[in-house]
């Protein structure tokens, strides 16, 4: 680490804090991936690593290289924007695929197609009767 010898102390402390924060949050997300007990709970935990985990390490890297090279180094923003945009897309695709597979296998943990359709049709019928509850 001889290249970091002339880094100011406040910058070193800030970079160290951001690095440990980011990697610690990533580790917490991975522990959640092991310990949570259903897929639909587990799909939430890696996002801890893709939001502040990635954000902390990228901010630390940006600050470090900006202080080392004496000019603003901002190309880490590319990774930040890309991860922020793509993570919700991939996880939503994956969760919908898992829901589809569970429904095809008639897994009792997820609502079936017909239950969801009945619930949404009830809402439509209630809406057409001027907001009055339907008498059954």
């Amino acid at each position: 680490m001889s290249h970091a010898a002339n880094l100011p102390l406040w910058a070193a402390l800030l970079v160290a804090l951001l690095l440990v924060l980011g990697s610690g949050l990533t580790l917490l997300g991975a522990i959640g991936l092991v310990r949570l007990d259903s897929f639909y709970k587990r799909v939430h935990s890696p996002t801890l690593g893709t939001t502040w985990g990635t954000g902390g390490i990228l901010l630390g890297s940006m600050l470090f290289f900006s202080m080392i090279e004496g000019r603003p180094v901002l190309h880490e923003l590319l990774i930040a924007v890309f991860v922020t945009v793509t993570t919700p897309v991939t996880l939503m695709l994956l969760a919908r695929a898992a829901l589809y597979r569970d429904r095809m296998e008639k897994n009792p943990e997820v609502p079936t197609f017909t239950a969801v359709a009945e619930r949404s049709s009830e809402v439509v019928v209630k809406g057409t009767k001027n907001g009055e509850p339907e008498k059954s």
Partner: protein
Amino acid sequence: MSAAILLWAVTISQIFLALAALCCGFRLFRGPRAQDRVLALDALYVCAMLMLLTFGIRTGSTLYFEAALVIALLGFVSTSALAKFLMRGEVIE
């Protein structure tokens, strides 16, 4: 002084990220269903990307940044392709 602080922080950070990758690997091998394995693979890609960024800070070269960017791109493509495969049974229709 600041070099020592950074060295310790980067070492701790790499240990944390290695433990996170181990957790993801556990879920990748153990995962009861295919979607759990795909989810663990996605998290493993993120861990590898962050590990490369910390290696970049440790060596002081920006060369690792390109590798991290490529890993982020490949992670998105592979996870969405695998999710499509789980949904439809084929990737390109």
